[in-house]
């Protein structure tokens, strides 16, 4: 009898915990944020000190590890193309008509002068492959987002999940993610170094419904190691689960 009660209690406890574990939260978030295929048009606004730079690009993506982007403005960046295949990334520079593979120390450099590094842009593996998730609290947070014409202060009821690295070769040893309970969108994420120093903060906002999923069309990334710097991204057009030609994701397509 006692054994039965113990087992029963254990079952209740484990199942109730399971409902809102960190793992579960991250898994749901991942599946919400990943699409089979996507076509996205974006506007990137980079604020550095007193300067504002705006860049527009289009991107195609397939799953989480295949992607292609092409910059269409300004003139300086027009025709710069990126290709991501699994853990590799290439950049095509039209000014010299050359394709350069981004590897090694270059991965941590800024992409197009933004607060986003190549590594951030390339992240393709599921978070749970590299990190152990722990639900640490539930919190209501207010995160502003820009619609391009004005700012909205959005309130989210969130799970706060801590991710600690399981493997050695990660840039962000520790991450803390605020996942909106209603939409499973990670509305805020803080990225830390092994030393505990906070490196970057990203936020997502202006969550829109696409078919049966929620997707944010506003994104910010702040690299705290850069003085007075912030990158905003506005998704101006998004199409999901569309058919796309397979030769988009080839190195040859870069030089076309």
């Amino acid at each position, binding site marked *: 009898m006692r054994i039965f009660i113990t087992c029963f209690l254990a079952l209740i406890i484990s199942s109730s915990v399971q409902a809102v574990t960190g793992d579960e939260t991250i898994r749901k978030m991942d599946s919400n944020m990943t699409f089979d295929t996507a076509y996205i048009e974006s506007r990137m606004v980079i604020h550095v000190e007193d300067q504002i730079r705006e860049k527009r690009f289009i991107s195609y993506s397939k799953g989480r590890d295949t992607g292609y982007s092409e910059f269409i403005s300004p003139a*300086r960046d027009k025709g710069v193309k990126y290709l991501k295949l699994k853990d590799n990334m290439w*950049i095509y520079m039209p000014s*010299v008509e050359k394709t350069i593979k981004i590897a090694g120390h270059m991965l941590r450099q800024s992409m197009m*002068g933004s607060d986003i590094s190549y590594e951030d842009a390339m992240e393709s593996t599921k978070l749970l492959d590299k990190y152990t998730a722990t639900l640490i609290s539930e919190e209501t947070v207010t995160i502003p987002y820009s619609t391009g014409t004005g700012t909205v202060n959005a309130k989210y009821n969130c799970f706060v999940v801590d991710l600690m690295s399981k493997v050695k070769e990660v840039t962000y040893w520790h991450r803390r993610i605020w996942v909106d309970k209603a939409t499973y969108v990670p509305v805020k994420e803080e990225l830390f170094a092994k030393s505990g120093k906070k490196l970057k903060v990203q936020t997502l906002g202006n969550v829109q419904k696409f078919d049966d999923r929620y997707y944010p069309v506003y994104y910010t990334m702040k690299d705290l190691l850069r003085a007075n710097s912030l990158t905003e991204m506005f998704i101006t057009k998004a199409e999901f689960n569309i058919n796309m030609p397979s030769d988009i994701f080839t190195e040859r397509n870069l030089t076309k």
Partner: protein
Amino acid sequence: MFKIALRNIFRNKRRSVLTGLSIAVAVMIAVYLWAFFSGIMDDLFDNMIRLNNGHVRILNSNYEKRERMLPLEANIPDYLAVEKVAAADPNVTLTVGRIKFGVLLEHKGKNKPVFGTGIVPETESRISRLDQKMVEGRIIRPGQEEMNIGVALSRDLGLKLGDTLTIVTQTAYGSITAMNLKIVGIFNYGVQSVDKTTFFLPLDKAQQLLDLDDRVTEIFVFIKDMNKAPAIAKNIQAKLEEVYPNKYTTKAWQDQQILYFYMVVARNVYAGLYFLVLFLASFTILNTMFMSVLERTKEIGMMKALGMKDRQVMGVILLEALMIGTIASFIGAVWGSGISYYLATVGIDFTATFEEMGTLNFPINSVYRAIFSWGIVFFGFCMGVLFSLLAAIPPALRASKMEPTEALRTI
């Protein structure tokens, strides 16, 4: 007394000539050394100022703190307006913007970390005389995707005139950027640290490459009298402060580099060397004078016995030294000035030596030119006379202290 001294000099010609010769050689070496080192020092100054600093340099205050990292993001926006503020000072003769950045230059599997410098070709000729330093090809032209590289760098990477290199680097905002640059000229400053690690490209192209439109990382200011640089730097700083508070820092060449400190040390070391040579030479004089006193012990004893006073004996010997010293110093000075004049016009080529030594991070020309000046020659002459006189004092004292009876007894 004068007559006695003169007679003494001519009585033992060999001895006098020997003493005179040692003085002359010492003076010659001293004059030549001084001219030679002044030449090196002046070259050092000249190169350092022209290539690295200008007389006064204007920087973004944040750039100054991390200059070793070449932080492009800490730049000078709308630099022409900043130049204008500096140029308003009546002492300023020229202002020019530059961009210095780091890049890994690759060619046929070889690579080298080098410094790219964006320059205004027309003014650069006035600053570092780039146009005169070209050994092949021509100077870069504004608006063209061209580069000038150092002769040593071209050799190290196996590059030649007409080759096109792809420069891949980061913009001021950290994104990857690339440009194809054609080598239109190869320069030789004779300064190893420059010839081995520098290439020049037009400023406008550097701005385009690095996403620094209308911006530079440093402004060189040249003034009429470079010795007034600290005061003028302060003046420009104050003016900049009015327009752009807490934004920029000005640095006079005097407080710009640790090199200046080395130069002060080097100057002192050279001055020390100079006096050492004269000091050693004075020992020879001392020795010969002692010898001549000893040889003449009997004679001095005789003179003393005949009623010559201690002071007069001393006077004779000192006068003798003074005469030899003056004549010898004059000859030495003439020789020395001849050598320094030759070195000033022709120079010594140390290029091969420096090649073997590897990169010298010291802006010294591979061809040394001495500085010829009458001041140096006159100074050398005076030193020669002074030292011969000083060296004659101990033997003269000794001679004057001799007892006539004792002296006469010697052979």
